[in-house]
């Protein structure tokens, strides 16, 4: 067992060739490993974001021969236009719902499956994951059909019990809930598996030791397991918000198109509406840039939080 890492470093350094070429080779190596990804990401993501940022200062539709420079006007309207404000509020509602449905709920279920039951774990894993295989277009079509408030199977069954399914497409908040549920149907299994694998990595001996000491299960989970699983959990948390907002786009597009009166729209869909329905590329670019900035803040918080904590745990 090698204990002194500086000894190791010295040995490794002494193994590389003469000073000059060694250092050169040492600096080139990380580049080679990172190059393919860096190139692809730069060309296909970084440059477009730069281009989008540039376009946000114009009124344009991408094809007219002249662009009209409008300075910060698009950004001002991002924050002052009432529709934009409504849409941003909706985005917050979406995030909260997605967190509850796609993070907290799978986490609870994964805790139950891992710690509170003995049999059938494999069966649940398989069954929960099946919707993740589906295309969300299929999911949206299917649920739009199933949840048709007048003639769908859900409505018909409820009628047998004397209940009525509300016209959820006519209410922004109900539409948001249904759309989140549809997304949840697809995403639940995958998040569940991710969290479950994280839980499975918690060393058995710690749990056994706690059990021997008579610590109740909930305590063990709260004080030991959750903190140890932090890395995976935070990853799933971030993914839930980011990918969740991108996932809900499909049911939005297929079922409500953001209606009624932007009631179910969120900032991502509204960006799409501005870009590809109204061809207001400038407004769309400003919205996209603002969205991206907000996400970057989230990311910064995550890295600080996780990095810091990971070091503590180690």
């Amino acid at each position, binding site marked *: 067992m090698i204990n002194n890492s500086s000894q190791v470093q010295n040995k490794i350094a002494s193994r590389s060739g003469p000073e000059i070429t060694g250092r050169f080779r040492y600096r080139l190596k990380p580049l080679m490993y990172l190059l393919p990804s860096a190139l692809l990401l730069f060309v296909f993501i970084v440059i477009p974001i730069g281009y989008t940022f540039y376009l946000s200062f114009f009124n344009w539709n991408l094809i007219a021969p002249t662009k009209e420079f409008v300075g910060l006007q698009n950004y001002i309207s991002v924050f002052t236009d009432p529709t934009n404000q409504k849409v941003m509020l909706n985005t917050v509602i979406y995030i909260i719902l997605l967190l509850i449905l796609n993070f907290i709920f799978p986490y609870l279920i994964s805790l139950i499956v891992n710690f509170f*039951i003995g049999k059938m774990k494999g069966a649940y894993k398989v069954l929960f994951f099946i919707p993740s295989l589906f295309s969300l277009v299929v999911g949206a079509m*299917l649920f739009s059909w199933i949840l048709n408030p007048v003639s769908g199977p859900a409505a018909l069954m409820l009628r047998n019990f004397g209940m009525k399914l509300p016209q959820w497409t006519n209410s922004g908040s109900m539409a948001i809930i249904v759309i989140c549920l549809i997304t949840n*149907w697809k995403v639940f299994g995958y998040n569940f598996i991710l969290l479950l694998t994280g839980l499975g990595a918690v060393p*058995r001996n710690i749990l056994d030791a706690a059990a021997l000491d008579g610590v109740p299960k909930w305590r063990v989970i709260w004080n030991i397991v959750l903190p140890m699983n932090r890395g995976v959990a935070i990853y799933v948390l971030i993914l839930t918000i980011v990918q969740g907002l991108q996932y809900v786009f499909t049911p939005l597009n297929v079922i409500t198109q953001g209606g009624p009166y932007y009631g179910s729209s969120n900032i991502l869909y509204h960006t799409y509406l501005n870009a590809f329905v109204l061809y207001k590329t400038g407004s769309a670019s400003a919205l996209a840039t603002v969205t991206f900035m907000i996400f970057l803040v989230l*990311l910064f918080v995550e890295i600080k939080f996780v990095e810091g904590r990971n070091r503590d745990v180690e």
Partner: protein
Amino acid sequence: MLSERRHIGWHVLLLLICLCVIVPVLFMISNSFKTLQESYHSILQLIPSHPTLSNYRTLDKQINILRMVGNTFLMATLVTLGKVLTGLLAAYGFLNFHFKGKRVVYFLFVATIFVPFTTVMIPNYLVISKMNLLNNVLGVALPQMCDATGIMLFLKAMERVPKSLTESAKVDGIPDRRIFCNIIVPLLKPNIISVGAIFFINSWNEYVWPTLILKDKSSFTLPLALQNYISSEGGTNFPLAMALAVIMIVPPLLIYIVFQRYILSSISNSGLK
């Protein structure tokens, strides 16, 4: 150990969730075997009274299903290979090497996850068009060949590899690329398979980007074919669309069944001893 009776309560809850999850799938399969008229007439009936293969036969006549499965498979494989390979390489780069500004670079890489697709769609289209890759499976695959979520996941998995393994290898003078190929990658096999499977499945179901790029019916992928059966103007033939949806899910399902062991196995069993 808790008593069996307490377990039953949990099982009831879990089975309820299973029901919510599986019943829509049953409706999908059931409708695919109904005629248009029957699907409207007997909505609650999960088992059709006159099951028919007519939807599948119509699909077989109207589109070359096998060819589309092939196209979709090719595209999904290209994308998955790209994402996995670039992800592994980049993760190892971050793991193993330390250079100035590494944290900033990592932050930038991960930031790309947060870029919504609508933002990059048109510029990517322009690039692919200039490269003359329109209507080409490569044109569809290329912009998607790197995914920072893969880099993140692989890096986290690599960080779990005991440093003792890699350090002793380095001391023995084994070059980095051998460490990468012979030690790191084999140890990451379960992660590669599980992450790769998810990439494959997502790429399999992708339709927004392929719609822009692919023109020819002969190069269509399955999700594009599905779009061909969704039309509010002419009315959507729900059973027909569901039949296509059933066909669409078969390959991912097969992949899932075959690799299920890896996808679902916990890290503690992955042989990191």
